[in-house]
């Protein structure tokens, strides 16, 4: 008989919670917002049971601020939100980029702009995840199309945050967040769990909290430990003290971008389905990738050479992978639920942008295999 104690039939939001717990979360601050609220609700129950901390803050800004504060004391931290809340978090998210604070932000996307379409699906925050906060910076954003992957990407989000000392955005969507399906929780050790580097500089020796090692990583010292240093959102020197010397400013900005962009291969997750001989490549992510896979499987049965590239890392955008996988395609179709946010990236990645098309849906309904088929037939010059 198989062991079923690690099998759940749950919502995607709960799969995210399970992934966070597996990764070692011990601090969560949040604010209620549809469709992400279940993440807060379940962590409110689960965290104190393992000695962790949950706090419902007065607003989204405060939630983002609180996790940054907690992270500096050595906790593994997360907050969860959706569109309007994600907008409110942007300033503090930029602070986490600048001060290099490991943290995870789950954004279960709903329709926007503004209050928008709270209980319905959208993938409209792709560009906001990249450029929502002001100023040049780099960011990591991951997504998933099923609960097993929600779990895995959540663990990866914590690992990347701790490795590169960066905020990581989990870009889920309402369908994934609220849909119920099976999750098999991996045994301990099956998935790697990364803890942040901590400094080995002994007490009494000058510690440089913001002097990157050659590989770009910065060993941390927890607040409360022997090294007392300054953390600021201003441009700062290797001690963390404000500095606007032109060389210091440009070096720091380049470091913030390079530490992510130069490691894109280590941060790059994707899945491919039937791409080897594909004339038609569908590129999708999140819940819309489920419909893309469905129609590709269906068309394959009818002899069409079609495959799916499912993106799991959205930012940094996997330009090289997209170019490579689309090199032999007669047409590329991006399937997403927005006005064309990833398609822009794909067009600039491939050698023949004129062969890139968009199959989208923006009405709060999950894009269906039929929707994709309709666009596919138009591309092929067939009647709809």
């Amino acid at each position: 008989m198989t062991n079923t104690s690690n099998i759940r039939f749950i919502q995607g939001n709960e799969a995210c919670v399970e992934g966070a717990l597996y990764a070692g979360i011990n601090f969560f601050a949040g604010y209620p917002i549809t469709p992400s609220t279940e993440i807060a609700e379940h962590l409110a129950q689960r965290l104190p049971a393992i000695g962790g901390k949950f706090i419902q803050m007065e607003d989204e800004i405060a939630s983002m601020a609180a996790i940054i504060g907690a992270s500096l004391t050595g906790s593994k931290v997360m907050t969860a939100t959706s569109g309007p809340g994600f907008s409110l978090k942007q300033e503090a998210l930029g602070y986490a980029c600048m001060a290099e604070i490991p943290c995870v932000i789950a954004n279960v996307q709903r329709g926007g702009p503004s209050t928008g379409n709270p209980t319905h699906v959208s993938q409209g925050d792709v560009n906001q995840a990249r450029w929502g906060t002001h100023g040049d910076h780099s960011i990591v954003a991951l997504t998933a199309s099923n609960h097993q992957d929600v779990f895995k990407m959540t663990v990866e989000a914590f690992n990347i945050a701790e490795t590169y000392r960066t905020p990581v955005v989990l870009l889920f969507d309402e369908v994934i967040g609220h849909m119920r399906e099976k999750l098999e929780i991996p045994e301990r050790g099956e998935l790697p769990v990364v803890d942040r580097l901590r400094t080995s500089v002994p007490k009494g020796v000058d510690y440089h909290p913001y002097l990157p090692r050659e590989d770009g990583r910065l060993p941390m010292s927890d607040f409360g430990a022997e090294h007392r240093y300054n953390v600021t959102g201003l441009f700062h020197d290797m001690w963390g003290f404000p500095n606007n010397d032109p060389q210091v400013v440009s070096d720091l900005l380049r470091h913030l971008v390079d530490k992510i962009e130069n490691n894109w291969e280590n941060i790059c997750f994707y899945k491919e389905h039937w791409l080897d001989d594909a004339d038609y490549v569908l590129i999708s992510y999140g819940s819309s990738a489920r419909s893309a896979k469905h129609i590709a499987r269906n068309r394959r049965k009818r002899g069409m050479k079609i495959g799916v590239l499912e993106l799991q890392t959205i930012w940094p955008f996997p330009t090289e992978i997209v170019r490579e996988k689309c090199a032999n395609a007669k047409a590329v179709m991006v399937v997403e639920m927005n006005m064309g946010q990833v398609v822009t990236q794909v067009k600039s990645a491939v050698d023949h942008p004129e062969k890139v098309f968009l199959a989208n849906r923006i009405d709060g309904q999950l894009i269906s295999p039929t929707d994709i088929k309709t666009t596919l037939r138009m591309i092929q010059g067939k009647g709809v």
Partner: protein
Amino acid sequence: MSTNKEFDFKNYVRGRYFPHIWCPGCGHGIVLGALLRAVHELELDKNNIVMTSGIGCSSRISGYVDFHSLHTIHGRALAFATGVKLSRPNLKAIVPMGDGDALAIGGNHFIHAARRNIDITAIVMNNRIYGMTGGQFSPLSGTGKKATTAPYTTIDNNFDVVELAKAAGASFVARSTVFHASESKEYLKKAIMHKGFSVVEILSQCPTYYGRKNKEGDAATMMEGYRKNTVKIGSKKLDTNPDLIQRGIFVEDTDRPEYCEAYDEIIETAMKGKA
């Protein structure tokens, strides 16, 4: 509590980061001095103090002190400090703020930190103006004042920090001025040792902007004003002049549960599987 070791400024500041950015005559240095003396006399371990601040002249204080220091974004220092404190309740959380930082952009966090009664010491360094951006009125300026954004004088009413903190649930509330440096130090000592959310408002002059715009004279004259215009709580002088500002400890309530301690009880319950 007093200590045998004599107070030496150098033991508490980061020499590398001086000179500071404050204008000549600014009152904030006196607040810094009072705070460091308070920490010294309490014989606190510097490794156990996290100083969290937001944005503004006053907020630069966190960089100058040799504690763990977190210089954050405008208005949100208390929210950052809440994360620090709840994550590691053994650390002392001190949050110096300016009046605009604490009560305009940060007003929501101020009342909610007070409501939770989380063990954080909030110091409101009240100079009634936005100094760093060049002299705009703040929610503590009051009516009839001049500022760069109130060339015809202000019509905005001001908060009373003490009344606001009391109403929001702070369990320790005090007020002093930089003229009364020793008194400020004593209130800060009590606030830091108080288990719960403590607020100390310290009136601090800004001769550069508030003083100049409102013809209140130089730093010494403005400090002299703090001596003349303030009295101890309940002073008889209030009978003849009710406009005098009261100094003292307005609230000191040790019975209210502190947030992190209350959460520890939640953990105990949850670990027994009772949730």
